[in-house]
């Protein structure tokens, strides 16, 4: 380790008394100890990644405003989220003859389904994205126009997805579904307040669990 090297050579030689030559070296060990202690402390206590957030908008309660009618949805895709990580979907209005299909949370399940259903909007959005990449960043008018086009496309999107859950569904399930919406850029989706209705309950209970 580093230490003070005393200038011992000059002592006892000759009769002359010289001023002791002090070395300028300082023992730095404690300093290093301290520095590394602090370093370890900060490395262990600091949190680097700030948590991320997923934005969710819940509509105002319907009771507050009786003038708002519940939207009539005809060709919607309804996703039924249930316990044990099970998830189902059907298209259109529910009736006893509706076919409810079980899917899963993998990329070949829900994501593939949503990509297929949202194919039209996705391909249009991709074209715009290419346009945006080609556009000059300084050309704000063009960039804004693309932005408006994106919003217009989203507004005119025909795909509507409803999400219903029963009392066994976990928070993770719903966030996973929301995340899939973000990935597949579904523009119109709603998480409904009321759970499964009687027909849905009956049809879901008829589907045997996988494995």
């Amino acid at each position, binding site marked *: 380790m580093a230490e003070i090297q005393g200038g011992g050579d000059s002592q006892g030689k000759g009769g002359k008394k010289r001023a002791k030559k002090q070395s300028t070296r300082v023992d730095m060990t404690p300093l290093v100890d301290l520095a590394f202690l602090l370093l370890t402390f900060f490395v262990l206590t600091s949190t680097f990644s700030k948590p991320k957030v997923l934005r969710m908008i819940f509509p105002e309660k319907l009771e507050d405003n009786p003038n708002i009618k519940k939207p009539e949805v005809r060709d919607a895709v309804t996703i039924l989220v249930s316990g044990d990580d099970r998830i189902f979907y059907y298209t259109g209005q529910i009736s006893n003859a509706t076919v409810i299909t079980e899917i899963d949370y993998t990329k070949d399940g829900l994501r593939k389904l949503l990509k297929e259903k949202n194919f039209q909007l996705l391909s249009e959005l991709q074209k715009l994205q290419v346009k945006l990449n080609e556009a000059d960043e300084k050309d704000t008018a063009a960039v804004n126009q693309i932005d408006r086009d994106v919003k217009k496309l989203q507004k005119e999107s025909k795909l509507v997805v409803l999400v219903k859950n029963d009392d066994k569904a976990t*928070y993770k399930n719903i966030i996973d579904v929301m995340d899939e919406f973000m990935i597949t850029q579904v523009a119109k989706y709603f998480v409904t307040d009321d759970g499964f209705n009687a027909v849905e309950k009956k049809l879901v209970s008829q589907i045997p669990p996988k494995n």
Partner: protein
Amino acid sequence: MPKVKMPRSTPSLDMTPMVDLAFLLVTFFMLTSSFRSPEPVFVDPPASTTEKEIPKQVFLVTIDETGRVFIDITNAAVKEKVLREMIADYKVGLTEEEIKKFIGSGPLGMRLAELPSFLAQEAEKRAKIAEAAAGVPYDTANKIRSCELYNWVLKSRVIADNDFRMREASAQEKNQSFDKDNYMQFAVKAAKNTRYETVKNVVDVLREARVSKFQMITGLEAKPE
């Protein structure tokens, strides 16, 4: 044969570069790190692919697996004002010192009536009590407006709005730039296994207080190709 004499000298090493480096790293970590705020419960949120970071000012609602609700306000000034109004409404007596303690004590997860006895405890005991607390009480259906959570949210929303407007006005007066995005937003942090019904009931209380935009806190997940 004469022995080969090794020069006897204490091995000395110049440590200056190492110290330089060590202090550089210390400085870096000191400046970049933000400390984890004290949390009475550990909540593991689900992951998502979003890249949006949590806003600076939030009203954080934490929901654990069993459905207990903890609330926290990151803006200390707003937190103080809200507490003062709450204790006046619920007729809970707190000294100035206890109010100060409350502001530094992290998320709240108990009935307001329990606060005085809780704040009278020492810090170590407080952590244990906070851990075992039953959560901020909330209600559903027609009793929703009389529950404590509703009042906390409503008061916070109003006070944060006023605070935002005051900051805006004073910035304009002094001709300073003003960050319009720095307003209080409502963040929900729930555990993976929390039942969605529970989250929805809590969110319903907030919706009743006319909050409709929520930032759901999630962990980070890689974006798909």
